[in-house]
């Protein structure tokens, strides 16, 4: 049974009291974002100084092999912050189940909009789409400046192998487990296998779910990158490609970079902030990402049908994979004549 907000407040006062000295906790609000884990917004007031800290409690979901442990996730968050990426500051992390029954962390609360369509409305109202696209590129470059040898072992994904090969293997296993044969996925896998990009100069930290929905945006632009639960090491172009999947444009199709800006705005800013950009790799990883999300939607349908996560949203996801099939087949039509070339 999940704790109610009163129990959560009491546990927070107990935990923070033991770490920080006397603290009172109030203003708890359960955030609807995050399908699996609980995010609770709250204010902590230090009894001695009266200082008020706006914070977020994140409680990890029941053991789930798909999601990183909280130690690994918060390590990635810290590494990204050290490199200057906009992320919520991490205050506390604990695996002690005594407080909330599950591992948890407490981070700074960054004000702003996270719901994708509202984010895009805000961006449109303030005319800051190109700005956010550029800020996303710069944020990715900072995340990718974390080299693989700084990243703790559990986050490293086969640092001695070509990341595109490893990614194709992992996705191939998922495709093998789908309910119906998909010639579109097979066609895309074939193209991806025949046209692999050059491996990156070095493996880096990759966020792996960098997109509208996991970003906090305000009138001044991008404020924070959230949801580090899938992070791993690999080819940094994976993040640029995932960000550019049409689904994450939420109807703003012509704004290829996340629904915010032109692709060139993203790539130019990425390179200016020190990112090592290869244009062909960006194309390849965008096609890969489109396939990955198409397969991901089919997997959601399985999770619904098998009873693992029965949900009307997951059920309808199964029918959304035709969107990704279409995007994939058009991307392949545009790319089929290209071969991996040298640097742009």
């Amino acid at each position, binding site marked *: 049974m999940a704790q109610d907000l009163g129990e959560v407040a009491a546990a927070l006062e107990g935990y923070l009291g033991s770490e920080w000295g006397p603290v009172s906790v109030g203003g708890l609000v359960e955030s*609807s974002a995050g399908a699996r884990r609980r995010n609770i917004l709250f204010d902590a007031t230090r009894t001695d100084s009266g200082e008020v800290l706006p914070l977020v409690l994140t409680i990890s979901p029941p053991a789930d092999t798909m999601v990183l442990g909280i130690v690994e996730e918060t390590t990635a968050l810290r590494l990204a912050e050290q490199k200057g990426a906009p992320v919520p500051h991490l205050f506390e992390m604990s695996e002690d189940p005594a407080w909330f029954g599950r591992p948890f962390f407490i981070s700074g609360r960054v004000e702003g909009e996270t719901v994708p369509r509202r984010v895009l409305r805000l961006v449109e109202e303030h005319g800051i789409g190109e700005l956010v696209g550029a800020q996303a590129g710069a944020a990715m470059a900072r995340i990718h400046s974390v080299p693989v040898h700084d990243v703790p072992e559990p986050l490293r994904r086969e640092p001695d192998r070509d990341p595109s090969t490893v990614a194709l293997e992992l996705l191939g296993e998922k495709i093998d487990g789908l309910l*119906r*044969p*998909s*010639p*579109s*996925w*097979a*066609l895309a*896998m*074939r193209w991806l296998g*025949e046209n692999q990009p050059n491996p990156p100069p070095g493996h880096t930290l990759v966020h792996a779910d960098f997109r509208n929905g996991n970003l906090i945006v305000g009138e001044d632009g991008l404020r924070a990158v959230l949801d580090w639960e899938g992070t791993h090491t690999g080819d940094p172009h994976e993040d640029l490609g995932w960000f*550019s999947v*049409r689904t994450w444009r939420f109807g703003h*199709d*012509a704004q*290829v970079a996340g629904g915010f800006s032109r*692709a*060139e705005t993203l*790539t*130019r800013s*990425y*390179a*200016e902030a020190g990112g090592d*950009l290869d*244009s*062909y790799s*960006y*194309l390849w990883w*965008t096609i890969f990402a489109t396939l990955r999300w198409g397969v991901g939607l089919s997997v959601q349908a399985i999770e619904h049908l098998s009873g693992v996560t029965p949900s*009307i*949203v997951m*059920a*309808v996801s199964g*029918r*959304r994979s*035709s*969107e990704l*099939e*279409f*995007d994939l*087949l*058009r*991307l*392949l*039509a*545009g*790319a*089929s004549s*290209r071969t991996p*070339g040298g640097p*742009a």
Partner: protein
Amino acid sequence: MQDRPTATELLDVLGEFLAADVQPNLTGPAQYRGRVASNLVAIVARELELGPAMIRRERDLLIDLLDVGVDELQGEDPGVDVLELNRRLAERLANPAAADPVFVDQARSVLEAVARDKLTVARPGYDTYDSAGDIDPTGRGGAE
């Protein structure tokens, strides 16, 4: 024969009920699920109308592409045939030696036609945007 309303007419009234009486009373995450539910009703209604012709079209396209004899197929239920034809096509595309570039290109065109068809049920209008040129692999206008 069932009495009126038809299945389509029943779905119409279900959709109207969701929009008029259910949606306005939902809050929080349920609000989103409510919109998904309305969308689901619309998908099923379109599938009832368009599905039967669509599955026959897909079967014919795949038979042509794979050059399958009609006697090789079950033939009564086009859905069963299409499943089998998709299995064969996926298998052939996954085998590097079993498909030459011309066949792969033909397969891509057929699959695109099928995907456009599926979208008329799942998400009408989605195929009016073409992502073929989204990412320029030469990086023109990008970072030099």
